[in-house]
């Protein structure tokens, strides 16, 4: 089982790694601001401009240039066709499979139980978190995580409970290999929507592989057991967040773009921290 997994992982890694290094350059160019210049409008704006009373439109844009950099950046999305299709697939999967299952499960299992299950799965993400914190030279968060793990494993009964947070006031410090790579300057490549997992990018997708090896629950049985556990974890999570997906989707004009953009912003923030 370990060998199978290794082989699969290696192939995946090799293929995607090749892709990543090919695309790292355009991303670098992109982030250096090689972008259609919106500022050309400066010249023509006064003609379109109407004095809006108290509001000087021209000035407004000048004062809020913080939105110009990333906002105007043309996102390099070579697989947009595939990404959109996969987004639709994931969407259908949610409404036809995940949501009904999660709703049924939520009806049967009391919420405190499901919250504990969530905590349990999160607890065993410790190796991933501590190692990636260390790789990013974040000593204190790594120490916090270790105390949390030790405390919650014992007092928290293998992680079903989180006394480390409630009594010791220690928060988890989520890090993963994608963030580690990002913090060392590895570009995200381009957006890539994964089946079931949702929006991602080349770097973060490849980075999932090493993190997989660090997840203890994957070693409990064969690859089917691991997949089953992941599926259960997702089902449980969905049951705790019913209704949110629909609400977010309702607000968007272009759901795919919303997801792509939100994922990107969220990751950039996570990497910066």
């Amino acid at each position: 089982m370990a060998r199978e997994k290794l082989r699969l992982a290696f192939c995946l890694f090799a293929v995607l790694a090749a892709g990543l290094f090919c695309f790292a350059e355009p991303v670098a160019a992109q982030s250096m601001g090689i972008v259609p210049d919106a500022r050309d409008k400066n010249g023509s704006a006064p003609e379109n401009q109407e004095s809006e009373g108290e509001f000087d439109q021209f000035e407004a844009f000048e004062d809020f240039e913080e939105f110009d950099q990333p906002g105007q950046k043309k996102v390099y999305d070579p697989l947009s066709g595939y990404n959109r299709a996969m987004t639709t697939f994931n969407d259908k999967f949610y409404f036809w499979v995940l949501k009904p299952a999660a709703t049924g499960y939520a009806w049967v299992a009391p919420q405190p139980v499901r919250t504990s299950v969530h905590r349990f799965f999160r607890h065993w993400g410790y190796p991933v978190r501590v190692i990636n914190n260390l790789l990013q030279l974040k000593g204190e968060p790594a120490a916090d995580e270790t105390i949390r793990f030790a405390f919650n494993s014992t007092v928290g009964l293998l992680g079903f409970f989180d006394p480390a947070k409630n009594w010791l006031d220690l928060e988890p410090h989520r890090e993963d290999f994608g963030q580690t790579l990002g913090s060392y300057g590895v570009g995200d490549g381009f957006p890539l929507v994964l089946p079931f997992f949702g929006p991602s990018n080349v770097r973060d997708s490849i980075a999932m592989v090493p993190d997989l090896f660090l997840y203890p629950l994957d070693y409990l049985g064969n690859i089917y057991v691991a997949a089953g556990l992941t599926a259960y974890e997702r089902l449980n999570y969905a049951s705790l967040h019913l209704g949110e997906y629909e609400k977010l989707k309702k607000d968007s004009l272009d759901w795919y773009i919303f997801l792509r953009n939100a994922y990107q912003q969220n990751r950039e923030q996570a990497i910066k921290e």
Partner: protein
Amino acid sequence: MKKLSIAIVGLLAVVMVFAGNARVIGAQESKSAETTLKNNIDAVLEILENPDLDEQQKKEKIEDIVDPIFDYQLMAMLSLGRQNWSRLSPDQQQTFTNRFVKRLKASYFDKISMYSKDLKTQMNYKPAQTSGSKVRIPVEVNAKEEKVNLVYKFYQSDAGWQIYDVEINGVSIIQSYRSQFNQVLSRGTVEDLLEELKQPAEPQSTQ
């Protein structure tokens, strides 16, 4: 992504009132911005938790509180961006702003209904960061097992401190709308965009 929604709950639960007429300059102002923020969040939460009001009344009261602090006009413009905004005629700009604001408010009130005392939400106000004439106030919202990081971005307007953007776990509302508007405009016309905005955000159960 689902976490985003809890974040939005927190966000909307945390909508604040800004009866700001602070005219002091600099660090003192950001301090006063923080205090007013806290006071007003409390005021809004009070309304949300009031058992004597029905949904509609809560909506109206909260809207009264919220309207003065959010600079909707500015948010509408920023969400389009300079290039796209100047592509619109003044009439279109007006229509766009109206529909955008309507959508924004509808989205808020929809999420706000998800707020409940049961969530045992706890707000942690972090130190404000001033940069130039703008203030960023981070608020950490703790609800059950989730933690959401909000950032309220204020600027000094003629009407006092007003919000021009909110970030939820690093995702800026303005940026989010901007990327979507860019997409619509790159594929279609301004009229297409206005048309899309017109459609009330309907729950899409299958699609």
